[in-house]
């Protein structure tokens, strides 16, 4: 009987573990060690692993990952004989493989994430979990409070930014209210590279759902930041895309790019219930982190709309460019959809 591939999974290992080098790890599990495997690069952002003579137990198809480096994996039966794993990357990187015999046997493909540290190194992100203390923000149908949900996501986002090599400042790290002046002081003083304020949509009706991101129009890079955050949220979490819109009221003028991410709609009963799951909150934070990384990648050389940065054409028709896409998917600058409030 032929040996079988039984599972494939992708995980991210931070710099604190395993020798201080961060990497993404794609693990292919099988009933026997895949000694005859081959690894082939396809252009700079693709890796194909072939396991000859193996049968495939999982279904063929795409496995989305979106961890900042690995975009998705495609599992197929190889044309000749065996199993093919096609790994699509967001950035070129070093690839190392290790076979670990055992039950199950594992072929581990280590993809170096040091490149991401280069993008994020020296970047300071001000993360603002909205509300706090006596100001609970919105309340959901089962009384999930906005201030608590966004605080948890904010802390997780800070951890994600630090894991990518950036620096994160939180406007609050516990349940207390912070005055507007104190909250945004670091941004007003220009001590941070951008501001991400976390809120939940509270449209006053249970029928509106989804995510949207507002940007502060006083800085020219705010739309690009908003577009990248919105794209990352929608891709990873399969949320309804409520688009990107401008909002000049929330912060006043700030000298840094600033956005307000309305993660989901708290008044929608299903989205409120999703927020009760720490797995969902972690996925929100990872998506926000990936959006920030993509934004810094596009702007690290001071690129503006229309400039070409690392193979990405940065926008057309004046709309902000989203890293890693062939089409601009930003719906921004068309005015805010109905509902919402902070």
């Amino acid at each position: 009987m032929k040996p079988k591939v039984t599972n494939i999974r992708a995980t991210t290992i931070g710099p604190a573990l395993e020798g201080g080098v961060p990497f993404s790890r794609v693990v292919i599990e099988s009933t026997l060690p895949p000694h005859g495997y081959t690894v082939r690069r396809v252009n700079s952002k693709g890796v194909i692993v072939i396991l000859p003579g193996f049968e495939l137990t999982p279904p063929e198809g795409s496995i989305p990952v979106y961890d900042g480096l690995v975009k998705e994996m495609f599992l197929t039966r190889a044309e000749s004989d065996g199993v093919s794993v096609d790994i699509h990357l967001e950035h070129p990187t070093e690839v190392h493989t290790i076979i670990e015999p055992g039950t199950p046997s594992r072929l581990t493909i280590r993809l170096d994430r040091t490149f991401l540290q280069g993008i994020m190194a020296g970047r300071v992100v001000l993360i603002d979990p909205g509300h706090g203390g006596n100001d609970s923000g919105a309340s959901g149908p089962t009384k999930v409070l906005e201030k608590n949900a966004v605080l948890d996501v904010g802390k997780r986002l800070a951890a994600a930014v630090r894991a990518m090599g950036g620096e994160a400042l939180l406007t609050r790290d516990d349940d207390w209210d912070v005055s507007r002046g104190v909250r945004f002081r670091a941004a007003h003083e220009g001590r941070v590279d951008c501001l991400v304020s976390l809120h939940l949509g509270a449209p006053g009706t249970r029928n509106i759902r989804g995510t949207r991101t507002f940007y502060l129009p006083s800085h020219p890079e705010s739309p690009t930041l908003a577009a990248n955050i919105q794209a990352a949220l929608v891709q990873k979490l399969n949320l309804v895309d409520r688009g990107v819109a401008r909002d000049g009221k929330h912060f006043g003028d700030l000298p840094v790019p600033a956005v307000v991410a309305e993660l989901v709609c708290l008044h929608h009963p299903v989205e409120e219930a999703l927020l009760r799951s720490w797995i969902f909150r972690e996925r929100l934070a990872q998506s926000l982190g990936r959006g920030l990384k993509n934004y810094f990648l596009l702007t690290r050389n001071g690129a503006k709309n229309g400039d070409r940065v690392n193979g990405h054409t940065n926008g057309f028709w004046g709309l902000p460019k989203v890293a890693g896409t062939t089409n601009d998917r930003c719906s921004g600058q068309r005015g805010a959809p109905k509902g919402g409030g902070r």
Partner: protein
Amino acid sequence: MKYQPIPLRTHIITDKDDIVKVVRTYTDGIAEPGDVICIAESPVAITQGRAFLPQAVKPSLLARFLRHFPRKEGSLATPWAMQLAIEEVGAPRVLLGAVAAGLGKLVGRKGDFYRVAGRVLALIDDIGGTLPPYDRYVILGPKDPKKVVEAIREATAVDALIADVNDLKCVDILAVTGNHDLEELRAALRDNPFGNDDERTPIVVLKRVGE
């Protein structure tokens, strides 16, 4: 260690699937006598048509009232989950459970609601309690788990179990065939090889690897 878990990645299991056929297909050539095939409880319930979108459930006034009492992090915090609990065991048992939980709270005891209203209610996964794409559903516990594991044993000639495992390392074995040391089985599943995120590995073969 006596068992080594082999997680099996599957397609997204739906109510169109027959769980016995699914298990037989994915474990063929991997599980053998002496092993134990483990299935997560939610996919079994899904194949039994026990996953409900909120719009398919009409919460009664009683459900809307009672859902205020469980912890927000618990399984019955939404009116839809509470309504399904009422339909599962009947309003009188749920009310008795609520009274017992209230009295239990007075003396600092936990778990009285489920002891009185029924253990099956503890298996309900509220919205967000299961992995995508079923994180938008309320999922009841599986019906007749003993019959299901016996049918799997019959079809595969390998012992089977259905378990509810969570990220807090709690393992609840709902049904199992054969004579196994349950503590060893729980230990083998404690790290949740079914996955906490979207791993999509609802079937795990526990390989016997030595005494």
